[in-house]
C-alpha cells in the first residue's frame, strides 16, 4: 500500500469539495499558483491574506466564473471540468456566492431578488418560489423589506438579501468574498450574525475575510494565502497563538493594529 492509498483509506469521509492544484494567469500574470484545499461537510474555513494574493480569484475559479488554466474542482464527487463540457450552470447552482459589494439585481425588489433564480433557473412555480423567498428573507430578519428595492436598503440589509438569495438555491457550499468589507462598521454585526447562524446550522463555507476576531471563533481552519499560493494552513489556535511565529499571526497583528482591536 502506497502512502497516498493509506491516506485515502484512513480518511473517514470524502470531503464535500476538493480544490485540486488550481493555477490561473490573468493578463500574463500568474495569480494562482497550484492552490489546493478541501472542505468537509459542515466545515467553515477562512481564507486570509494581503490584497492581491489571489483570494477573490480563487473563489471565482472554484465557482468556474473564471475557468482555471490548470487544476480541477471536485464537488460531491463530480468534476467541474467534466460538468463544464455540457452544463456548467448546474455546477454553479450548487455553489452560492456572496460578494463584497452585494451585486443585487437593481431592478428587482428584495423578494424578487431572492425568488428570481429559483423561478427562472430551477423552474419553480411562482407561488412556491415566493413562499421560499419569504422564508429566506425572514431567516435573515428582513420580513418587513419584501417590497424594497436595493437602493432603498442599507448595506447590511443588502448583504442579508444577497445571503437569502444564495440560500434560496439550496447550495451545497457557500463562498463568501469579504462579505463585510464594504459595510459601515455599525452594520458589520448584523451580517456576521447571519453568517454565524448559517455556520451553526451546518452550512459548508469558505470565507475570505479580515474579521479575524469573528472568524477565529467559528472556524476550525485558517488558510493563509500570499502571492497566489497557500502559505500556511491550520487551526486558528495554532496559527494565531500569541507565541506563534507564523506568517498568519504577523499579518493579523497588522490587522488588529489598524483596527485597534
Amino acid at each position, binding site marked *: 500500500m502506497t502512502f497516498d492509498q493509506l491516506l485515502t483509506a484512513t480518511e473517514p469521509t470524502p470531503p464535500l469539495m476538493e480544490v485540486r492544484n488550481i493555477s490561473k494567469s490573468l493578463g500574463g500574470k500568474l495569480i494562482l499558483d497550484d492552490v489546493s484545499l478541501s472542505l468537509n461537510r459542515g466545515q467553515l474555513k477562512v481564507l486570509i491574506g494581503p490584497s492581491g494574493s489571489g483570494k477573490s480569484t480563487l473563489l*471565482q475559479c472554484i*465557482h468556474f*466564473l473564471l475557468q482555471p488554466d490548470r487544476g480541477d474542482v471536485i464537488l460531491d464527487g463530480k468534476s467541474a471540468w467534466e460538468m463544464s463540457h455540457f452544463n456548467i*450552470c*448546474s455546477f*454553479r*447552482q450548487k*455553489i*452560492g*456566492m456572496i*460578494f463584497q*459589494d*452585494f*451585486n*443585487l*439585481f*437593481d*431592478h428587482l425588489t428584495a423578494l424578487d431578488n431572492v425568488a*428570481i*433564480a429559483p423561478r*427562472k*433557473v*430551477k423552474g419553480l412555480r411562482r407561488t412556491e418560489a415566493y413562499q421560499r423567498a419569504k422564508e429566506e428573507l425572514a431567516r435573515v430578519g428582513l420580513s418587513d423589506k419584501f417590497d424594497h*428595492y*436595493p*437602493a*432603498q436598503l442599507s448595506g447590511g440589509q443588502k448583504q442579508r438579501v*444577497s445571503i437569502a*438569495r*444564495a440560500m434560496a*438555491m439550496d447550495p451545497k457550499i457557500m463562498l463568501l468574498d469579504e462579505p463585510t468589507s464594504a459595510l459601515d462598521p455599525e452594520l458589520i454585526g448584523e451580517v456576521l450574525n447571519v453568517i454565524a447562524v448559517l455556520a451553526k446550522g451546518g452550512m459548508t463555507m469558505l470565507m475570505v475575510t479580515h474579521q479575524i476576531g469573528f472568524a477565529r471563533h467559528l472556524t476550525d481552519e485558517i488558510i493563509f494565502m500570499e502571492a497566489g499560493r497557500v502559505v500556511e494552513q491550520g487551526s486558528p489556535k495554532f496559527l494565531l497563538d500569541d507565541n506563534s511565529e507564523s506568517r498568519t499571526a504577523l499579518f493579523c497583528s497588522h490587522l488588529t493594529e489598524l483596527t485597534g482591536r
Partner: protein
Amino acid sequence: MLAFLDIPIVESVLYIIRGTGYTVGLIVGAMATGLIIGLPLAAIQIFGPRWSKALAALYVWFFRGIPIIVLLFLFYFGVFGFIEKLLKTYSGYNVALPPFLASVTALGLVSGAYQSQIFRGTILSLHRGQFIAAKSLGFSTIGTVFHIILPQALRLAIPAWSNEYSILLKDSAVAYLLGTMEIMARIGHLVSITHRHVPFYLLAGLLYFLLTHVGVVALKALERRTRIPGLGNDPQEV
C-alpha cells in the same frame, strides 16, 4: 376654411389623415425593426466573440455612414428589384413589392445601427457585478440577458430612444421619394393641384410637430411608469 383652395375639404382632410397613418406605420415599423436589430447587435458588441464584434461594428459603420435617401434608393431598386426579378423568373408572375415595405426596411436598418449604440451604452452603464451574480446563481448567458440585463437596459434606454424616435420620424419624410403615400407625398400632391405651397407645408410641419410631441410625451410617461428607485438617476434628485 379650406374653401379658397378650390378642393373638396372633407376628402382632402381624409386624404391627409390617411397619409398620417402611413407615416405612423413607417415610424412604428422602422423603430420596431431597429429595436429587433439593435438589441442583439448591442449584445454582440459587448458579449460576443471577437469576429462577431467586428461584423457588428462593420454594420454600424456602414449604416451610419450613408445618407438615408441613398440607402432608400439602393434598397428599393437594388434589393427589391432583385427580389422582384427572382420572383418573376421562378414563378412567372409580375410581383411589385410595395415601396412602403422598402421604406420601413431601409429606415429600420439605419435605426438598428443607431439603436445598437443606445443599448450598448445603457448595458455598459449597468452595474457589472450583477452579471457575475447571475452567473453564480446558475443563470445561462441568455437567461442573464433576458432576466437581468434587458429589464434594466430597456428602462434606461427610454430617453435616448425618444430622441431616436423624433429624429427617425422626420427622416421618414424622405420615403415619399419612393412613392410611399405618407404625409409629404400627399401634401406634395395637394400642392401640385392647388399651387398653395405655404399653407400646405405649414400643415405638414404642424403634423410632424404633433406626431413628435405625442410620441415624446408617451415615452416620457412610459419612463415615469417603469421607473425603479435607484436605477438610473431620478430627475427629481439631480
